[in-house]
């Protein structure tokens, strides 16, 4: 179990042919899923992705404009692999109208807030609603409270996160891109919750 970027980039068993970008298009052993990260500017979306894909924490991430794309494959215990194609979006309010471009057809929506910033928690709830209403019908949603290493500055309680997530049928986790806490778990848990295509 765990992350591995050394896996082949294209999943075996899918040579050639068109792959419409619909997220669920994969075989039973090798899933390919489109994942979108949404949330306020500065909550740490880019850092989470960089931690997951490159295994590093760069305290000097760059401001995201529009969105950026990265992919990473993980192997699960049942010897299936999941290739995440990740859209890391820009958080500033005025970019919101672009969001549908990125979440269209996404199999997973990861909505991030900063546990030291209550406004970002409210913003997260806005994104949850938008995705519930306009995302793919069977989208897997995760609510992520990031910067969990900043306990002394916490302003959103764990309980608040859990309750909101439960009410909305989402998976909830607190992470720290800085210490790497729960970053791999986040993606592994998502992988487990993905609807599997029936083996052929």
């Amino acid at each position, binding site marked *: 179990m765990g992350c591995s970027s050394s896996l082949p980039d294209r999943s075996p068993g899918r040579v050639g042919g068109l792959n419409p970008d619909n997220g669920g298009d994969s075989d039973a052993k090798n899933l390919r899923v489109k994942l979108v990260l949404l949330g306020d500017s500065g909550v740490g979306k880019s850092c989470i992705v960089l931690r997951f894909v490159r295994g590093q924490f760069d305290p000097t991430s760059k401001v995201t404009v529009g*969105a950026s794309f990265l992919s990473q494959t993980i192997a699960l215990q049942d010897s299936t692999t999941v290739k995440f194609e990740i859209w890391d979006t820009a958080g*500033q309010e005025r970019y919101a109208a672009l969001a549908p471009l990125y979440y269209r057809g996404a199999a997973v929506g990861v909505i991030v807030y900063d546990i030291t910033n209550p406004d970002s928690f409210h913003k997260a709830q806005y994104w949850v609603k938008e995705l519930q209403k306009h995302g793919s019908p069977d989208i897997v949603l995760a609510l992520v409270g990031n910067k969990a290493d900043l306990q002394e500055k916490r302003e959103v309680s764990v309980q608040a996160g859990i309750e909101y997530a439960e009410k909305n049928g989402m998976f909830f986790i607190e992470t720290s891109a800085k210490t790497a806490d729960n970053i791999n778990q986040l993606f592994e848990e998502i992988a487990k919750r993905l609807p599997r295509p029936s083996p052929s």
Partner: protein
Amino acid sequence: MYTTQKKMVIPFEIQTEITILRPSIHARRANLVVKFQDLYGFTVEGNVDDVNILNEVREKVREQGKAWWAMEANKGANWYFHTYASSIALTSSLRFSVLVNAMTLKKLIRKGIPPSLRPKVWFSLSGAAKKKSTVPDSYYDDLTGAVSDKITPATKQIDHDLPRTFPGHPWLDTPAGHAAVRRVLVGYSFRDSDVGYCQGLNYVAAMLLLVMKTEEEAFWMLAVLLENVLVSDCYTDNLSGCHVEQRVFKDLLTKKCPRLSTHLETMGFDVSLVATEWFLCLFSKSLPSETTMRVWDVLFYEGAKVLFNVALAIFKMKEEELLMTHSVGDVIKIIQDTTHHLFDPDELLTVAFDKLNFMTTNLSKQRKKQETVVMAELDQRLRRLNTSKLRVNG
């Protein structure tokens, strides 16, 4: 507390030499990745060939400098400005010599303005000098002085973004660099409160500072860019101008590369997935610095259509490869690899301006057409979100 910064010259020198690597055959075979500083001080990672290309570019820049100095010797120090002024004077009696000069100038600019002349040429040809001349001399100092302690949503976002703008740059990522970028952006956010601050402008302002060397001139370049060079509303509240440009670009690609456009569409690839960042950062986040600056050389002289030339050229250069892709991820990978390694500006600009003859299109008509569509869409989104809000509250 507040000190006058307008005359401050950025203590950052254009790097005239980079370590010349004499690659052994082994290094070449091993495709070693090396880190080095480019002309504007950015750390780039590339292989040995990339370093050599950068050195060649430097040599070409020197040659290009000679061509410019020769013109100055021949036609006088401000020849380009007179040429520009008389060619926009809209007289039917354009003298032949003016036309010849104008064509020479256009060609010279497409071949690149030498970095040492850039501040002067940009400032006069973009219209920034003229803009500045319409207000009192103390405008920039007064503006930045008056607003330095104010806190607005714009200033908050700017403060968050300063350390995340070209991190690691030897001057931009220092307290002095942050302070300079901050004053330019905060100043502008008060000059135009419809724009305020839009993410992406941080990269643009930073590059302008590196080139112009003084905050005040960087500020006026930013102003002329947003107010005159680019289409309006690119950076305002809902980015409507940017949405319009994206749609116009999409249509252009369909026209110029119909096969590619169809192929991309089948995979569900929308060009704005990559082009939004290009148009908002004016390529500064995607292309190597000197290549970006070469695009801006032409942008400031010929206007916003240049962004289409360049964006189209990137797709055109990789058309064959892109036609073989099977997924959105593959497309993005190819595009990103291409843009990050375009160390030779001429490779890109030749395609953009010589090989693509697409400006038969009436851009303003296209823009008008798309404007209506974009406005309707943004409006619809707003209404949709408002109704869902009501439902949540009620």
